[in-house]
């Protein structure tokens, strides 16, 4: 039996997805199922003057029309409870749900939506963070102070700021006062749509006083809890069954169509399907937030950073989701992975009359890390030193601390990552062989693994196969299909083809933190490993009497139980399960995982949702680009990643995640603009919103570094999220190198670049 761990075993869910057999939410058909559609606000801000659904109710095929009047008058939310299910008296963003219809056919429900009489008195929108922060700005949530929130987390809120966090170490002003040179940059970041293949959708049934929700969702327990909040019921009155998911990237962690379908299902007594159109999905997606980051460094005469200010403002949109939990990242990332002297940092999450924002791979860290890495190149150029050499001279080493007081025990992995890239792409040679308008850049960072807890159950079937039950799905990373399958197969000595993962179900599985932040392989994998170890022990215990020996002498591998001291003696696993299980009972194991707390300085980080960076991993990226002088387009000629993963359970799976994360990072840097004008998106379809294509992305060269972690399954750390976080800055800096002009915004359009080239020419 070959080792499973460390081998590129093909993913179990691959053939079904490729051949179209996999069932997604949109494929679900129930008897009597109705089709729903939502009436959304056509304007970014306004008062609802008139809402009349009488005509819509009389339309052919219509079974129910619901509005705010038909649901509990509550506000819900992941952490800050500011979100109503339907707009009641006022609308706060274009696309905000106002009514929902269920009818026999989709055409009928859409026709009925169009027949709803709606009159809105428009109000000039607070369209961006500058308007929201301006003196005398209209308050988007006048009752902000009264909103409830989850216990244990402090949200400082005021005016249009949903959450403000600030901290400073002593000596910042003194450092700036004695600085030889001060370098300051302001960077603007656009929004980014997750662009998953499968728009959000759900099918909800109401029966026996309970809701059954079928959705391709990243975090079924969060969805359960949100429904319970909106509907004012017990979480256990909601059953969420996760379906195969056509991508999420953070966009499917919170509620989408589910509460609306749930209300309609109860109103009609029929199953209700609600699938967003692509345009609707884009309009209402909780996209990556726009942000503005101002970073200012005080340098001494030797170029050391002796003080740092880091102010980061993020666009919350009209209501809060997960971003309100991200304040602590401003503390963890304000320094980057470099020595800076004392820091002053501030995070603000700001309400605007725009579509609510949320998590997208690298949540809130992408603009912060991008700003730091772009700023580092700017400093190096001001000093006239090589940006790579400058980084190396100031990079944190083992046992240096982040500003939250957390010790990075193994930061020297960064040096190893630089050295590995140097082997395949020597920096000086990369610089020497550049043609005109080509540029190279390199950058580094630390990233975290989401620390939410996990559980798993492994049941061994009578035929010697195993099923793994957990509360999370395979988001597409292979974390379940390759990672967890591999962990259980290796532990039980099974062929991975005989290990099956089950879709999450809140009625069946214990609580799980969902597929997010690279946690699945590590947390669910660890829980599954514990469960499999328990199963293995039970198998050996059941085998011992049949083999007339002690369980301690037995091992399980290749579908057989062997006696260590008598290699000729073996019994088949299926024999044990057929015979032994009658005596021992069916064989099931359970396991759980919770991260150990990390020591930090409570003086600065107490009250933060993330006071530390759990399971830090280390990353160095390098890119080479060529700028077209004719069009301003950028071609990424080469992209190299060196990434610490703990242990590569499945190298092919990791390479795939690195390729995908970098593709999204390049897309953000160069292709994907989701611009807001007067509170409305300018890009409103995938025709206008340009996701990069395979032809636009180079094959990423991935170097996988392994430093097994004690706590991870077989030493694994989180892997899938971070490949995106450095790519935007590294691309920006490579363009900076190519054209000699910093651009200070992301995405970088051909317009920005051509205009910069013209400026350079005339200068």
């Amino acid at each position: 039996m070959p080792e499973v761990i460390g081998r590129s075993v093909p993913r179990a869910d691959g053939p079904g997805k490729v051949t179209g057999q996999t069932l997604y939410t949109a494929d679900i058909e129930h008897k009597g199922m109705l089709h729903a559609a939502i009436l959304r606000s056509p304007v970014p801000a306004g008062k609802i003057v008139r809402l009349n659904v009488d005509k819509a109710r009389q339309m052919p095929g219509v079974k129910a029309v619901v509005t705010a009047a038909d649901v509990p008058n509550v506000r819900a939310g992941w952490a800050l409870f500011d979100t109503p299910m339907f707009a009641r008296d006022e609308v706060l963003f274009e696309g905000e749900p106002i009514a929902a219809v269920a009818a026999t056919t989709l055409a009928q429900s859409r026709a009925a939506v169009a027949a709803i009489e709606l009159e809105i008195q428009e109000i000039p929108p607070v369209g961006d963070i500058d308007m929201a922060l301006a003196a005398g700005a209209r308050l988007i949530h006048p009752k902000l102070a009264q909103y409830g929130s989850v216990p244990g987390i402090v949200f400082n809120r005021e005016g249009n700021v949903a959450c403000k966090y600030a901290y400073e170490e002593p000596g910042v002003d003194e450092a700036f006062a004695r600085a030889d040179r001060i370098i300051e940059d302001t960077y603007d970041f656009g929004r980014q749509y997750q662009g998953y293949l499968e728009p959000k959708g759900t099918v909800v049934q109401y029966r026996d006083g309970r809701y059954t929700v079928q959705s391709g969702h990243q975090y079924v327990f969060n969805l359960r809890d949100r429904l319970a909040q909106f509907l004012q019921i017990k979480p256990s009155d909601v059953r969420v069954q996760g379906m195969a998911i056509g991508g999420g990237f953070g966009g499917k962690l919170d509620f989408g169509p589910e509460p609306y379908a749930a209300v309609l299902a109860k109103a009609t007594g029929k199953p209700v399907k609600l699938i967003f159109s692509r345009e609707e999905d884009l309009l209402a997606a909780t996209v990556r937030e726009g942000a503005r980051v101002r970073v200012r460094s005080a340098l001494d005469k030797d170029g050391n950073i002796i003080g740092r200010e880091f102010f980061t403002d993020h666009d919350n949109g009209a209501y809060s989701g997960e971003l309100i939990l991200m304040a602590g990242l401003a503390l963890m990332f304000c320094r980057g992975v470099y020595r800076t002297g004392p820091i002053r940092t501030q995070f603000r999450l700001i309400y605007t009359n725009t579509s609510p924002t949320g998590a997208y791979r690298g949540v809130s860290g992408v603009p912060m890390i991008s700003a730091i890495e772009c700023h580092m190149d700017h400093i190096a150029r001001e000093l006239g030193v090589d940006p790579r050499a400058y980084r190396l001279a100031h990079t944190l080493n083992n046992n240096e601390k982040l500003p939250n007081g957390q010790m990075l025990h193994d930061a020297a992995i960064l040096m190893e990552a630089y050295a590995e890239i140097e082997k395949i792409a020597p920096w000086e040679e990369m610089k020497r062989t550049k043609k005109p308008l080509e540029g190279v850049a390199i950058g580094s960072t630390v990233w975290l693994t989401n620390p939410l807890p996990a559980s798993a159950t492994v049941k061994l079937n009578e035929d010697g196969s195993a099923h793994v039950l957990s509360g999370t799905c395979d988001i597409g990373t292979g974390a379940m299909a390759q990672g967890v399958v591999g962990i259980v197969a290796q532990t039980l000595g099974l062929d991975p083809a005989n290990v099956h993962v089950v879709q999450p179900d809140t009625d069946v599985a214990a609580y799980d933190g969902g597929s997010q932040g690279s946690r699945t392989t590590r947390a669910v994998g660890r829980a599954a490993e514990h469960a499999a170890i328990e199963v293995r022990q039970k198998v050996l215990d059941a085998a011992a009497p049949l083999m007339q020996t002690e369980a301690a002498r037995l091992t399980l591998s290749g579908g057989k139980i062997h006696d260590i001291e008598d290699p000729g003696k073996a019994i088949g696993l299926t024999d044990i399960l057929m015979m032994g299980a009658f005596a021992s009972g069916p064989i099931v194991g359970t396991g759980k995982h919770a991260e150990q707390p990390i020591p930090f300085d409570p003086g600065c980080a107490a009250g933060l949702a993330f006071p530390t960076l759990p399971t830090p991993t280390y990353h160095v990226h390098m890119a080479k680009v060529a700028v077209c002088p004719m069009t301003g387009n950028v071609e990424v000629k080469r992209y190299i990643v060196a990434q610490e993963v703990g242990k590569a359970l499945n190298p092919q799976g990791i390479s795939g995640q690195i390729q995908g994360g970098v593709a999204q990072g390049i897309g953000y840097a160069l292709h994907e603009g989701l611009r807001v004008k007067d509170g409305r998106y300018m890009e409103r379809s995938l025709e206008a919103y340009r996701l990069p294509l395979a032809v636009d992305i180079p094959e990423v060269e991935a170097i996988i570094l392994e430093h097994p972690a004690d706590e991870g399954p077989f030493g694994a750390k989180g892997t899938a999220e971070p490949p995106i976080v450095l790519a935007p800055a590294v691309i920006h800096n490579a363009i900076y190198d190519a054209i000699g002009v910093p651009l200070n915004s992301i995405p970088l359009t051909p317009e920005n670049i051509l205009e910069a080239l013209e400026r350079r020419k005339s200068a």
Partner: protein
Amino acid sequence: MSPTRPLILLPPSGKRQVTVMDFIYAQKLEEALDALRSQAGRAKVLAGGTDLMIQIARGEKQPQALIFIGQLKDDLATISLSQDGYLNIGALVTHRQICADRHIQANYPALATASASVGGWQTQSVGTLAGNICNASPAADTIPPLLVHEAVVTVQSAARGLRDVLLEHFITGRRQIAIENDEMVVGITLAPPPADTADAYLKVGRRKAMEVAIAGLAMRLTMAGPETVGELRVATCATGPVSRRASEVEALFSGQKLTNELVTQGASLLGRMIQPIDDTRASAEYRKLVIPKLFRGAVLECLAKLGIAISGLEKS
């Protein structure tokens, strides 16, 4: 008679009405022409449908009938060369066929390049050259190369038979073409290019495929001597409501010695002539900036294809 079935389309979000129309499968060209005549303006001709079906789904076009000509491959899906070297491209010839055609690659490479950049592989596989013209989008990729080759469009009606129109006259405005209700395009004809001629199509997009042109430029350059221009033709797209030849720019070059100064002069005149708009894809300002650069790029590409090096000609 052609079989007719009702076609029902879902309304787009926010629109009330369900679209119901007759779907007419023409088995012969005559049937299509008869159907066009009897529908008297209520019908649209459907070939690949890559533009039309989207426009119907969006409610932008509401024909009462669709006449599907996809069955008429024998009559309309061929690329043929006449004895005197004229190339006829049937109305059902797809972009993929254009890209793959050796004669087009050798004699009208700008057209092959343009067809290869229309949408993605799927669009190119079912979308037709004739459809691209009839849609008359200001950003249509194939129109500039067809303009510089002075393509002739052949239309046919049951009542009046065949009629030839210069493409330049066929496209009358943004999404407007000079065609009668009972007529359909049956083919496009290109004259053989003269000796010492090269062409180029340069397109600006934010990614390498699946792009509606932010701006596009086609050029045909015929040299009369080692450094003397015989004729230069240039046309642009996505730079105004209609793709047009830039005759003032062309006149600058006729019979002239090709110098860096002349190219600069031509490029900047072209930049002043175009009337681009701001849209989600790009600003008018960017288009004004990029078109002169494309002009110079196209001159260089044509010269490179002709194997001519002209000293002093700057790259950008």
